[in-house]
Each structure stands twice: as C-alpha cells, then as structure tokens.
C-alpha cells in the first residue's frame, strides 16, 4: 500500500466562455515498477497508479492508463475547452484498489 498519497490540482478559477485552459495535476506516489529488486534480491512488488480519470460536471473529459514506466510523483497536464461553469473531478486508481479523488471548480463568465 502506497503511503503519503496526496493529489494536487491546479485549475484556473475563472475563464471566458469557450476558452482553452491548462489543467495541471500532480500526485505523490512511489510508482514502484515491480521490476526492481530489493536488498534481499527479491522483486519489490509492483505498486502503481494504473488509471487516471477526469470528469467535468459528471461527463468524462480525460482518461489515461498508466503503466510501470511512469515515474514517481506523476505530473500530468492537459488542456480543456470550457463552455460553462462547473466542477472538474479527478480520480486516480491504485493497483491496491485505493482511489484518490479531488475536485476543482471553475466559473465561466
């Protein structure tokens, strides 16, 4: 089980209608690939976040499957065109079944 997992997101508070905004996300995670060996010579079990999903007002916006080559503390940014005010919901799914979630609001004038 990964410890100290804490998501951070940065979404602009305001945007003009139809504006393309950059959304930045960073989550602290060890992203253990499952390929490394420990001091005892045995494989360290894989422990990664394997999926990241973003929805806007409940509708899917962005989904990514993550694999063992993603580095620790993954940073991901993407762009979205916003037409209305609403809430981004971010969800990261861990190998161990844990789900880390956070949300961010944006108001469109």
């Amino acid at each position: 089980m990964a410890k100290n997992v804490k998501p951070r997101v940065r979404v602009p508070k305001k945007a003009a209608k139809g504006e393309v905004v950059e959304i930045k996300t960073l989550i602290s995670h060890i992203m253990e690939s499952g390929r490394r060996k420990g001091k005892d010579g045995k494989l360290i079990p894989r422990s990664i976040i394997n999926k990241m999903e973003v929805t806007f007002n409940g509708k899917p916006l962005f989904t990514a499957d993550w694999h063992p080559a993603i580095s620790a503390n993954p940073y991901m940014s993407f762009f979205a065109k916003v037409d209305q005010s609403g809430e981004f919901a971010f969800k990261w799914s861990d190998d161990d079944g844990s789900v880390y979630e956070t949300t961010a609001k944006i108001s469109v004038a």
Partner: protein
Amino acid sequence: MKMNWKQITFLTAAFAVGVSEFAATADAADWGQYQVEDRRSGFTYMTDESRAMQVDNFQNPGMLWVEQGADLWSKVDGKAGKSCASCHGDDGTSMKGVTARYPVFDQELGKMQTVEHQINYCLEKRMEAKPYKWESGEMLSMTTFINNQSLGMPVNVKIDGPAAEAFEKGKAFYYERRGQLDLACKHCHEDNAGGIIRANTLSQGQINGFPTYRLKWQKVGSVHRRFRGCNSMVRAKPFAYGSDEYTNLELYSKWRGRGLPIEAPAVRN
C-alpha cells in the same frame, strides 16, 4: 514567485573576469542569478525541461515535501507537548535565511550544526521527542520545508572564528584523493565541471539547491546522501550521514557556492 532565468538579466559578464577557480567553459550564456562570478549553480548544467520543472512551483515534485514539512511543522510530538510552531511561529517564515548561513558552529554544543542536526537537537531537547533518521521522510520533509523558506537568498556561510577549523578540514577533504579510483572531489567538480562522466554532465558540485529532487532518486535527498553517492562511486567507503567529515565538507562546499541563490527544492537529474 515566478522566476524565468532567461528574463533575469544580471550583468554577470562584468564579473566573469579574473582567475578562474573552475575549468573555463566555452558557453558564455547569461545565467542571471544562477551564476556569481565563475560559480555556477547546478541549475545551469541542466536541460531546459528540468529547469522548467524546477521553477514551476506546481510542477516541481520537491514541493510535495515542502507541503509535508509544513504539516509536520505544526504537529505536536514528544513529551513536552510542543511542535516546531510552539517556539518558531505558525508558519515557517522565522526560518527564512537559516539554510543560507548553515552549517554554523554552535558555541553551546562546541560543534558544527547542519540544519538536520539542529532539527534533531530541537526534537530531542526541546520537544523531548524521538529524533528523525537522517534520510527519513520526516527529516527530508522538514529540511525541504525549512530550506525552501530561504528560496532565492544568497548563500552566506561563516567560515572564520570557531568555524575555521571545520572549514579547513572540509577543504582538505575536498582536495584529498580517496577510493580505488583515487579521485578527489576537485578532479570532477573543479577541473572538469561542464565535462561528461559516462552519460552524466559534471557540475561544479554546488549544494545551494539541497534537499534536491533528483530525477534518478525519484525523491528528494540530502547533501550527505549526495556525498555518499559520490564517495561510493569513486569506490571509497562512504562516511555516515551527519558525520563530522561530511558536515565539514558541507560547510566547505557551501562556501564554494557563496552568493548563489538557495534553490531548495531544486530539480536535478
């Protein structure tokens, strides 16, 4: 604070004359605050991408440790029922400038204290709590948080008076050959800074950015971890974390980067 090294226009060229302590480099880029006379921060040896990662507060993964450190700062620990905040104030602003002048000679203890030593001193003596292990998550969070308070301040360590002995010892360590490869710090970081060692670019070995988020480590690490890594790569037996040898070397290395800005947490590869 948003810093763009390309936009910062200092007249470093005017200072770049005189006898060079370091190997001359062909590139005459303007590194702004990241260069003082011929002393160049490790920042200047990085790729543009890594530099962008460091200066963006959000993208810099080292900021995760700063956040954790901020949480620890106000967390009560130990029998005395105190947290760091009980004595030093709620936010870390009282720590501004600390790392710029550390390590310092502590009159009371009669020895050199790094930031890590001082944290453990407070934990044991003031909070009556268990000291942190040197390279533990707690210690790294705390040092990253404390050092981050001095972001951008110039390194200014005291090397005279009671610190002079440690300084001389650190200097001797720097120029002393060691390990099966028979190399001193100076062979890579003074004579060949800017050159390539296997697949890596050698920097001047400045320590103004520590604790540094090293992409290879995938986490932040202390200066002493870096020293241990270097020592084992020249096939010498590394000294212990927090040892006098490394504390003296930390003082000397820091002095070599006098005037460079504190970058904690820096991003390095």
